Each structure stands twice: as C-alpha cells, then as structure tokens.
C-alpha cells in the first residue's frame, strides 16, 4: 500500500505545492481548478521522479514554517542595516570579507536552502561551495568581526535546518 502510494505520489508535498501554484496562477478559486491542479500535481512529479534520485523523505513542516518566518524577519531587519551601510559608510572604510562556513549539513537540498537563505538575508552572499561540499564560501559586505557572522549563520540557520532535514 505504502509502495503504491509512493509510486503514484513520489513527492506528496510537491503535489500540494504544484496544485497551490496552479490555483494561484488562475487567480480565482473554483473546484474545477483545484481538481485540475491536483491532476497536474500528480502527473508532473510522477513523470519527473527518475531525475530526483534521493530526495529527503521527511521534512518537518512546522519547523520549516517557523524557519520561514524567522528568515522573513531577518530579511526586513538586515535590509535596513544594509541600506544604512550603503548610505553612510564611505568606500574607503568599507570592510568586506570572505567567510568560510564549515558545513554540518550533508543533504544537497539542505545546503541549497542554507545558501539561498544566506544570499537573501542582506549583507551576505553565498559565493561558492568547496569541491567536496564540506564548506560554504560567504562574502560579507561590511563587518568588523567575521567570526561572529560565521557563528551566527551556524547557530541561527544551520542548526535549524539540521532539525528540519533530519
């Protein structure tokens, strides 16, 4: 039974996401649209499942939602900080720095989400991954203490992602 379920719906969450995107694209809700969205949500993951070799089976939705709220809040706060840096710090006094973040995450999906989060939160851009995927290279716009930024990334985002993708 479970095997049949996973054969038909390899990514149940993706099915729901695709249906939601379809309904949003229509910009109006009707039962027919919902049904068609669900049909698309079944067909697309089923047809593309061979290109998704080992996806994480369990993602904790509740923790993911909390993580998204934290990230959204950080984006707002840090945007104001970066705007202030842009307007007030002259070029000569700017202290950009490379930061190396040693990764404890192993799943590619988790590392992708972490890199995306780092880029979206202003002041930091994730630039590169080491060749075997054990460290992430981050560029910081302006900092006096690169180690503190690294520790914040590790405790604030990576620890939470580890729980989500455990």
């Amino acid at each position, binding site marked *: 039974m479970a095997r049949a379920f996973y054969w038909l719906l390899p990514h149940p969450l993706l099915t729901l996401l695709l249906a939601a*995107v379809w309904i*949003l*694209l229509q*910009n109006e809700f009707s039962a027919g649209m919902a049904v068609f969205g669900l049909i698309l949500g079944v067909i697309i993951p089923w047809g593309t499942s061979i290109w998704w070799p080992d996806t994480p089976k369990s993602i904790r939705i509740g923790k993911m939602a909390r993580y998204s709220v934290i990230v959204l809040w950080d*984006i*707002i706060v*840090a*945007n104001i900080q*970066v*705007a202030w840096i*842009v*307007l007030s710090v002259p*070029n000569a006094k*700017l202290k*950009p720095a*490379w930061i*190396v973040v*040693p990764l404890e995450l192993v799943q590619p999906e988790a590392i992708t989400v972490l*890199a*995306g989060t*780092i*880029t*979206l939160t*202003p*002041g930091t*851009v*994730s*630039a*590169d*991954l*080491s*060749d*075997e*995927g*054990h*460290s992430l*290279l981050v*560029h910081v*716009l302006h900092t006096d203490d690169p180690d503190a930024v690294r520790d914040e990334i590790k405790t604030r985002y990576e620890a939470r992602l580890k729980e989500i993708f455990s």
Partner: protein
Amino acid sequence: MSAEMITTYAAALCLFVGSGFILVGVIGLLKFNDPMTRLHAPTKVGTIGIGMLLLASILHSFSLGSSSMHELLIMGFLFVTAPISANFIAKVSIHRKACETPPEPPRDDTWSTLNQPEGDAIAPEAPDAVPEKL
C-alpha cells in the same frame, strides 16, 4: 475613514517604502567599486523593494474589490531565483580573479569554482577560426 481609503493609503506607503529601498540599491550599485561588494546592493533590493511594491499591488487590488494573489507567486519565484543569479555572478568573479581570492577551505582541497581537473592545467588551444581547405 472608510476601509477603501485605508487600503489606498497603505498601498501608497508600501510603494513609497519599496521605491526608497530600490533607490538605495541603485545608489549602492553605483557607489561601490568592486564587483563583489556591488553584488550586495541589487540582490537585496530584489527582496524587500520588490516585496513592498507587490504588497502595494495586493492592497490596491483589494481596495478595488477584486482580490489578486498573483503577486505571491511573483514573490515566491523571485525569492527562489535571486540567490541563484547572485551565486553565478559571484562564481564568475572568483573564476576571473576579479576580486580578492578567497581563503582556502579548511577540510577540502579548493573551492569548486577554482577546482581544475587533472590534466586540464593547460587550457586547450582555441580551434582555428578558418576551416581547413578540403
């Protein structure tokens, strides 16, 4: 004050804040003098500047009585794609040595952008532009 007035003013405020952040992003893009620091300003504007403009659009559609949720999708797609373009620009500037070379990673050999496969040390000669005559 009616609800319609309130949403109109809120939309105007969102437009104002959003365009303010976009202005700051443009100033940053023009002011900084190194590709990596320049990268910071526009990637940030993509998040909050566009976000506020889209929020204004949602509020305005509500004040007109027809709800529109397309903006949520635009925001979602922007949030997914903006880090990727920023990452590619960063990778290019590392690869072309247009910025300070980053420090070595602690556990691995090198960064994947700088990783050169064995035997690839000498760049292959460019193929002749003129084809040989037959």
